[in-house]
């Protein structure tokens, strides 16, 4: 909120005035109101690995995060460039593999990678799109300077918070919306539906039937699955509700079975189809992948997109962007140390207290270590793990993440934030002006994941 020279950034001036003008106890009351709203909406998030309180509210902060129109325009261009390049990369590595032949990415990194899905080779998804729904994790380190932390090209979650956070804010502080021209985010479900319609299989006649496929109520993001199905006006299905007949996918209904054309699946590749992937999966639909290969259904996102957001492939994203677009990347990658290289590994082991270590196949903030807040014991443990399996870890410098004013027990204080805007790719690229801002509620903490006690904020993209 505060610029380098100590002044309040223009975009936050109105917020600052508003905060100052609040009566004593007013903010605390708003925070309580917010909690009541979210309880009523039933937005909860399951935290894996904690016995008590399996479901809890994600803390919501009432001070919005503000991004100027100019900054957003640059972000938008950068994100669009990135998702185009990533979809081109996915098409290439599942077809001719020019990027490997050209020597820009090592062959073994792709072919031996567990996230590479050989079953996808030579499959041609509708419109050539593999990753239709993307949530790019960004951090801002300075004015107009954003870094991409992760691309999240598989099944990113969190978009329901973007929409619900906005709804809550409009109820809580309508007066602030009168002072700012905030770009709307409520079109997201409509845009999602259009995107899904546009990638129906070419042989689909008429209006395509879309479903959302969920693993069920025990999934941490079940609320979001049902929210999106509701908002789009499509059925929410579990594996059992669908079956394959004569190479097509059908949904059981109270009347006759209904043919399904597009499946927005929120279950992982491994569980999609026990005939093709994990044979013990009971969440998926046997024969679904065959129906997909036969061109009778579209799976969104396509199986095998995980190879493009694999943490080991991440290091090569700048080269990937240049290879497919011929342009320099607009958004920065965080510089990443390669532990398989002796020299870089030695540097890493000597500087663990200032670096961030992430497990290559980890997600949600599990299996990671943030150097500056780590204990000696944790560092020793991670040093041992890195030496044992250098390819299993990526290591990055600790970024000076921007902070955002946040309401805490004692008043307003700066807390670190990141940003996940949501991108839809179909007949065109649609980026919702907004996103999920996650905030690390612990003082000094850089881990914003909700599974690690992070909270959310509404994200305001200002219009000119």
């Amino acid at each position: 909120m505060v610029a380098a020279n100590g002044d309040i950034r223009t975009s936050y001036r109105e917020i600052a005035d508003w905060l100052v003008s609040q009566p004593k106890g007013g903010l605390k009351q708003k925070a309580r109101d917010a909690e009541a709203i979210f309880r009523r909406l039933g937005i909860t998030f399951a935290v894996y690995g904690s016995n008590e309180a399996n479901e809890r509210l994600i803390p919501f902060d009432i001070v919005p995060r503000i991004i100027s129109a100019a900054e957003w325009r640059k972000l938008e261009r950068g994100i669009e460039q990135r998702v185009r390049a990533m979809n081109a990369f996915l098409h290439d590595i599942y077809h001719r593999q020019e990027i490997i032949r050209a020597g820009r990415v090592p062959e073994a990194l792709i072919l031996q990678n567990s996230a590479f899905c050989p079953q996808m080779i030579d499959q041609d998804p509708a419109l050539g799109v593999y990753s239709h729904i993307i949530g790019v994790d960004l951090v801002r380190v300075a004015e107009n300077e954003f870094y991409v932390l992760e691309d999240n090209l598989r099944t990113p979650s969190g978009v329901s918070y973007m929409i619900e956070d906005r709804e809550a804010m409009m109820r809580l502080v309508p007066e602030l919306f009168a002072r700012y021209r905030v770009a709307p985010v409520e079109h997201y479900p409509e845009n999602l539906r259009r995107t899904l319609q546009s990638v129906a299989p070419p042989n689909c006649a008429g209006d395509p039937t879309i479903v959302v496929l969920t693993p069920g109520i025990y999934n941490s993001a079940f609320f979001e699955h049902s929210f999106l199905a509701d908002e789009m006006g499509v059925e929410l299905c579990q594996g059992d509700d669908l079956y394959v007949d004569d190479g097509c996918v059908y949904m059981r209904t109270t009347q006759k079975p209904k043919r399904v054309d597009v499946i927005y699946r929120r279950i992982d590749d491994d569980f999609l189809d026990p005939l093709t992937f994990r044979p013990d999966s009971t969440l998926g639909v046997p024969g679904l992948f065959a129906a997909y290969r036969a061109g009778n259904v579209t799976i969104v996102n396509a199986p095998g997109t995980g190879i493009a957001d694999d943490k080991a492939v991440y290091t090569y994203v700048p080269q990937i962007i240049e290879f497919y677009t011929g342009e320099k990347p607009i958004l920065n990658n965080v510089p990443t140390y390669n532990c398989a290289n002796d020299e870089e590994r030695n540097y890493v082991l000597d500087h663990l207290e200032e670096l961030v270590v992430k497990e290559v196949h980890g997600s949600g903030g599990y299996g990671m270590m943030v150097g500056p807040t780590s204990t000696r014991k944790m560092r020793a443990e991670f040093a041992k793990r890195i030496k044992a399996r250098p390819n299993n870890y990526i290591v990055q410098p600790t970024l000076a993440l921007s902070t955002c004013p946040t309401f805490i027990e004692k008043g307003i204080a700066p807390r670190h934030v990141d940003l996940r805007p949501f991108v839809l790719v179909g007949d065109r690229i649609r980026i919702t002006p907004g996103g999920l801002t996650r905030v690390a509620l612990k003082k000094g903490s850089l881990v914003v994941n909700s599974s690690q006690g992070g909270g959310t904020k509404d994200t305001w993209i200002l219009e000119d």
Partner: protein
Amino acid sequence: MEIAIEHSTVHIYEHPVRYGVQELRLTPPNTPSQQVLDWRIEMPGIEGAAKWFDAWGNLVHLVNQTREHSDLEIRVTGLVGTSDADGIIGELPNSPTPRIFVRETPLTRADRSLSAIAASLEGKHRDQIALYHALMEAIRERVEFDAGQTDMTTSAADALKSGHGVCQDFAHIFLSVCRRLDLPARYVTGYLVVREGDVGAEAQHAWVEADVAGLGWVGFDPANGICPDDHYVRLACGLDAADAAPIRGIRRGSGTDTLSVSVSVLKQTQQ
């Protein structure tokens, strides 16, 4: 040579099955050494089957049954004309880049013993063909053909350790060593006209194809120590046995499934 094949797979279910679905990799391609003269798959649901080519260029049928049933027969009959092409397959249509077949799988992951075989072969042979023959020899020295000691889920490493195996295990060991040497090699399923002295008395057989510079894919039968000739009919290929399985199925219903398979692969005598 003309080879007549009859391959029947019968499932008898303890309790009625409400729904079943099968993926079949049961259609031989035409290759330089085989010409499919007649081929038929008969089973409930085959009329509506979806046909598609998988990642490796195999023709796959997806078949399903929506009526309640207590048994299921998958019956394949065909006639294939074969010739001896020294195992050379070359490039088949719809094949991806051969380099994909250096990918390790759980069944072909190399352990220390497999890596040791790879190391003992590296750089010692004048060409790839000689190396592959030496590899077949090395496997046959270490593993005895013996049905009943291993099963569908035995890995190359475990089969080598046990010193016993069937054609699937010989093939997996071959693949594991090749991939260790960064040489693309793939699993192949098919049928064999069994001759005196051949192992694999069951006429369903498995072998491998390795990529040879200038020739493309060349077949090797590690269980018998030769390149496939006109006694072989090739079905499908894949990264390993699980990937190339001729029949994969799932059913909705409880209870046991009693499976019986009969295969007859006969050389047709000229009229």
